């Protein structure tokens, strides 16, 4: 690898240029233009996976909605694992952030009077999802990126791959990163680092997530000793296209789409999600009912239906049908054009005339780097935000359309918190940062130059995928999780036997793929071990050997700490309850009045 050149220096370094990172960057740039701010991203920011979010972003804006309702939907959706102080703060700040997005130019869909439109999403009492047709994430990401372009002071390191956090004097003081086009490994010193690197859906084989979602920032923090919270909670989305896993947005159901089994029945009626209304009933789709139930429950219903033999065989695994034909071509073109485009291109059917084949697909990590409500991690100088962080507002199951809002609310808070920290943190010892960089360089060079070993990245990655899918999917059991943990330990050993083909310094994507795989194995182990130790069923974490929720023992966040050999040690932290004491999750009927 290339010789190191001198260290780069900034006040704040943001790692990850998706929605959360860009929102944090704008917050810093607006707050204090004199701060030196850098955004390090392994892809050009507009490629970040925020771009693929479709349905919308939730915030209370309409007169029929309320702060309490959004809180209650989020908390009951989380199966009471969300921290309620964080949820209250989130719900309170959400409308301001979405109005801010509007002022920055986001093309929200509108009512005839010019106000923004909202649509219902799963698990919501009242419709509150703001949307830009069905490309909301795309529009938000590009709006944020274009808005950031006006701040000349922001230095972007596009296509720089961060490999290590620099820790000295008990504080995070920067990152080591590879400049991909030259292969140089550089020390980027900073007084504060904000991680916003997204989730890690790619630890599973079948996911809506793009190739870049390998949990790099999460692994960086984990390796630096920061705990990962609630990692066992992995959200499956009920409607992915078979084969590719491409997302068909929940908005398809929000606009009235229904799920049908092989007998053409709306099978969700058998799973405690309420009674179906006819699709031409003006009250359809009913909120918090049937197709507008929460994601975890819909995916579990699919699995049960599969066991009963009621799903439809397809070349890429069993499916059910998502039928949106009754919505009509005109409305589909206006409200769900991307759904139509994706179904036509990747499923070969036109949803105006045929139902869409769908199956559950890994979509979102509820868990992530442990932070407080100001996005600060236990490591001074290190902040985390977005899907890579766990604050937590998502608990055991995230409500659809809360994540885009979360990027904004907490992205801004991260920027503000980091700026405040930087202005008050004073001077500290940074003498070893360059030698740390040199040893990181040596570590990477060893991987790069390895001439022994007979493994290929794809084979090892494939075995990690298999381990996760077979044991840590929608339904889990101690036996399957034990096997998964064993297999992952094997996978970890084999990492050292991978030999790269590519010895080039310029844009060596094989090297970065290798480093991504190392990160993913760390995260996969955190998921599997945390899942094994949570002997209850809650939200997205369903144990067939422990089918009940156990508030006595597990109204707690799991905290996974990385140990020497890579496997985690799991501890627990109490959930913050403010106004909504744990209760039964009820869908399909009038929700229990909130505790407020």
């Amino acid at each position, binding site marked *: 690898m290339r010789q190191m050149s001198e260290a780069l220096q900034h006040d704040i370094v943001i790692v990850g240029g998706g929605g959360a990172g860009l929102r944090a960057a704008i917050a810093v740039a607006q707050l204090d233009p004199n701060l030196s701010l850098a955004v390090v991203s392994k892809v050009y920011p507009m490629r970040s996976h925020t771009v693929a979010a479709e349905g919308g972003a939730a915030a209370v804006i309409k007169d029929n909605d309320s702060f309490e309702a959004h809180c209650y939907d989020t908390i009951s959706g989380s199966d009471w694992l969300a921290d309620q102080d964080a949820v209250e703060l989130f719900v309170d700040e959400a409308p301001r952030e979405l109005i801010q997005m509007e002022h920055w130019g986001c093309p929200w869909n509108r009512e005839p009077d010019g106000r923004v439109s909202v649509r219902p999403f799963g698990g919501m009492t009242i419709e509150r999802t703001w949307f830009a047709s069905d490309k909301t994430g795309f529009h938000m990401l590009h709006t944020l990126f274009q808005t950031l372009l006006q701040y000349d002071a922001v230095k972007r390191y596009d296509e720089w791959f961060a490999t290590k956090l620099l820790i000295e004097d008990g504080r995070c003081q920067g990152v080591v990163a590879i400049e991909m086009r030259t292969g140089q490994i550089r020390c980027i010193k900073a007084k504060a680092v904000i991680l916003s690197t997204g989730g890690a859906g790619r630890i599973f084989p079948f996911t809506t997530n793009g190739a870049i979602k390998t949990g790099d920032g999460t692994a960086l923090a984990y390796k630096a000793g920061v705990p990962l919270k609630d990692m066992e909670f992995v959200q499956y989305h009920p409607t992915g296209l078979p084969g590719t896993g491409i997302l068909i947005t929940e908005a398809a159901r929000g606009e009235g789409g229904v799920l049908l089994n092989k007998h053409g029945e709306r099978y969700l009626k058998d799973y405690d999600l309420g009674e179906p209304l006819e699709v031409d009933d003006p009250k359809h789709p009913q909120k918090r009912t049937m197709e507008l139930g929460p994601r975890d429950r819909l995916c579990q219903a699919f699995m049960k239906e599969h066991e009963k033999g009621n799903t439809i065989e397809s070349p890429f695994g069993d499916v059910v049908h998502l039928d949106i034909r009754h919505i009509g071509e005109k409305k589909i073109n206006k409200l769900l054009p991307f759904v139509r485009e994706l179904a036509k291109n990747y499923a070969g059917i036109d949803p105006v005339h045929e139902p869409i084949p769908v199956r559950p697909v890994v979509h979102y990590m509820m868990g992530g780097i442990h932070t407080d409500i100001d996005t600060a991690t236990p490591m001074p100088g290190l902040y985390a935000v977005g899907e890579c962080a766990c604050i937590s507002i998502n608990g055991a199951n995230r409500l659809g359309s809360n994540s885009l809002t979360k990027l904004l609310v907490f992205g801004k808070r991260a920027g503000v918190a980091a700026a405040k920290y930087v202005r008050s943190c004073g001077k500290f010892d940074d003498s070893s940062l360059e030698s740390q960089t040199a040893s990181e360089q040596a570590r990477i060079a060893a991987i790069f130059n390895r001439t022994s070993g007979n493994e290929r990245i794809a084979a090892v990655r494939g075995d990690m995928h298999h381990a996760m899918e077979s044991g840590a999917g929608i339904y889990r059991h101690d036996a399957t999780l034990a096997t998964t943990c064993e297999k992952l330990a094997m996978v970890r050993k084999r990492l050292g036997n991978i030999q790269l083909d*590519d010895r080039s310094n310029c844009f060596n994507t094989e090297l970065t793929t290798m480093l991504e795989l190392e990160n993913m194995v760390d995260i996969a182990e955190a998921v599997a071990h945390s899942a094994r130790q949570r002997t209850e069923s809650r939200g997205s974490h369903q144990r067939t050997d422990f089918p009940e929720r156990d508030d006595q023992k597990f109204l707690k966040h799991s905290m996974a700490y990385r140990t020497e050999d890579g496997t985690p040690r799991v501890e627990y932290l109490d959930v913050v309850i403010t106004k909504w004491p744990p209760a039964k999750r009820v869908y399909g009927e009038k929700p229990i009045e909130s505790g407020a």
Partner: protein
Amino acid sequence: MPQETITLEVFRYRPEEDKQSTFQNYDVPYHEHWVVLDAINWIKDNVDGTLSYRWSCRMGVCGSCGMMINGEPKLTCAVFLKDYFPKVIRVEPLVNFPVERDLVIDMDGFMEKLKSVKPWIIRDDTDQMDQEYLQTPSQLAAYKDFSMCINCMLCYSACPVLDGDPEFIGPAALALAHRYNLDSRDKGNEQRQDIMGAEEGVWGCAFVGECTEVCPKNVNPAGAIQQAKIASTKAWYRSVLLPWGKR
């Protein structure tokens, strides 16, 4: 039955070794449901880890995987092997860009151009955060199509003007500038006029129209540029004929 295969003829350029680019052939298993990107990923995973390219979302929205497929700019996640089978598929990096390595192009120029058109909302007033700016559905429709650009760069590869004049701002960036000019919330027309009305702005366009043809998101940059020419002309006449009036 033996596995059918299809041949990909892939552009290779290793900047540390090569003076010239070469082509390398790979035989890839043929699956009807595979897109060209699947085939390239198969090569990377199984045969040749040295092949470099960009990709991520594999659903046509991140804009990373644009390449020349048999001479035409395409998103490789959106073109299927079956549309070419059994013929050889030639895969090259997008033209009109320097090649960093293999199928990876250098986009620095575009990033500069994007910034030069001020693609953000410009207003004189300060933000009032209590309510959204009102915008009717028809005001939204006026610019919505032009806001759909994913910066995939296919239009830059389709534009012959950029060959003769690399300074030309180009289709995607100009369309985006026009998008903000058309937005009822924006007051930045005048600030963008200098760059839009310049030689390398809209007047560089010869209206070949191929940018619109290759756009995978139906943005119609050619239309945007012609509309901006009319707007630019009107602004010029107004400034000459009515120098005392408001533009």
